[in-house]
Every structure is written in C-alpha cells, then in structure tokens.
C-alpha cells in the first residue's frame, strides 16, 4: 500500500487555497479601485461640495462596521464593498476638486497618486517575498489605530495644522504597517475571506493617498 504523506498533501491544498484568496483579493482590489476612480470622476464632473467627503466617510464607516461583516461570506458582500468604495470615491472626488483649484493642485495630486502606488506596490511585493509572518504587528497596528482615532477626533474640533500634519504622517506609517500585516495574513492563511482582505488593503491605500495629499498640500505652501 502506498505510503502517502498527508502533511505534504495538506500543505499543497493550503497553498492552493492561499493563492486563490490572494488572486481574488488583488482582482477585487483592482476592480474597486477602478470603480472608485470612476466615482471620483463623476463627483468632480458634478462639482460636489467638500462636505460630501465627510458624508461619504461616515457612510463608508457605518457600512464597514455593520453591513460588510454580515455579508462578507456571501455574494452580497461584493455589492457592499463596491458600495463602500464607490461612496469613498465620491467623497474623494470632492476633495480632488478642492485641490485642483490650488496653483500646484494637479502636481500635488499626481505626486500623491504616484507615491501611493509606489508605497503599496513596494510593501506588497516585500510582504509577498519576505517569507516572514508579519502578524506579530497585530497588537501594534491596532493600538496605533486607536491612538490615531483619538487624535483625529480631537483635531476635528481643534483644527490645528501641526496636529493635522502629525496625524497624516502617523496614518501613512500605520497604513504601511497594515499593508505588511494584511498581505502577510493572506499569504500565511490568516485571512481566508477575500472581500475582507480587499476592504483592509483598499482602506490602507485610500488613507495613504488622502494623507499624502494633505502632507504635500501643506508642505507645498498651497493648503
């Protein structure tokens, strides 16, 4: 009777499942980013006011907290994630309209876009090839997230430019760590739901882009 090493078979099955999650995550991420870009273009064409950004962020947070976790294991989750990313795209469009009105606006937007792409591709490539499990970052990133949230709430009312700059810098570092953490969890089988994985990576990219826009806007002397 053939002596089958089931640990190898199970390992191969796990690798196939992980690759499937990874492939589906990047496909859905590409689609949601493209959809967001279309919605941002629609928002810019309609010249939506800048308060639309706050409305879209509130809507997206509520959907992300209450609707997405309940639908992520069904096909309805796809519709919900497109709803969230479309909403954030609409809000982003209103911010971009405001930046385009600045003298160096188009340059700032292009630089932030390129920088976000470089950061995401670089960190994802690193996490995929490093053969390291970055899930030890869990406690650190969630603690950092809570500190940043408290600072964001405080600055909603204090409106201090220096604190705003510090928050943006902290968000870029924190979201960079989240990219390592999320990608590593997909690769190592810690995240098996590609909708939730896409949501995590999308939020990291979105937050890095918004924070870079703010930092470049302030530092260029235009904001």
């Amino acid at each position: 009777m053939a002596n089958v090493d089931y640990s190898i078979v199970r390992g191969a099955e796990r690798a196939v499942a992980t690759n499937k999650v990874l492939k589906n995550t990047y496909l859905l991420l590409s689609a949601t980013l493209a959809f967001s870009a279309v919605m941002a273009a629609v928002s810019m064409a309609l010249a939506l006011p800048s308060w639309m950004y706050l409305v879209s962020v509130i809507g997206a947070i509520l959907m992300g907290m209450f609707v997405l976790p309940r639908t992520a294991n069904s096909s309805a989750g796809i519709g919900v994630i497109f709803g969230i990313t479309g909403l954030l795209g609409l809000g982003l469009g209103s911010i971009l309209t405001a930046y385009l009105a600045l003298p160096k606006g188009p340059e700032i937007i292009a630089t932030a876009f390129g920088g976000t792409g470089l950061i995401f591709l670089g960190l994802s490539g690193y996490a995929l090839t490093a053969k390291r499990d970055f899930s030890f970052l869990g406690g650190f990133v969630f603690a950092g997230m809570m500190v940043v949230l408290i600072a964001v709430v405080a600055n909603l009312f204090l409106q201090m430019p220096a604190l705003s700059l510090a928050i943006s810098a902290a968000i870029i570092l924190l979201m960079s760590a989240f990219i390592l953490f999320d990608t590593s969890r997909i690769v190592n089988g810690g995240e098996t739901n590609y909708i939730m994985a896409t949501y995590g990576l999308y939020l990291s990219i979105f937050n890095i882009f918004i924070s870079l826009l703010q930092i470049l806007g302030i530092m260029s002397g235009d904001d």
Partner: protein
Amino acid sequence: MSLFLQIALAVILVMMLFFLWPTFKHWQEHGPKAKAGDWQAVILPLALVVGLVVLLIALVR
C-alpha cells in the same frame, strides 16, 4: 452643516474605538510575538516609506 457633520463623524469615530477595542485586546493577548529580526524587517521598509515621503515633499516644494 459642517459642524453637524463633524459632530456626527466624531460620534462614529468614538463608536469605532469601542469596536476596535476587542480586536486590539485579542491581538495583544493571543497574537503571535515577534521573533529575533522581525522588527528590523518592519523598520527597514517603513524607513524607506519615510524617505519616499520626504522625497515627494522636496519634489512639490
């Protein structure tokens, strides 16, 4: 309008803090601990991110 939205966002962000708390506790208590060399493997790419942001700032100034 803006003040109302700011208050609404603040309430939702505080709510999010309460949502995040159990996740934070879980990762703090049950998450894997860093092994030797793990933090260096994180600090290096994050330092490169900082360098890139500084470069981008220099580009738009």
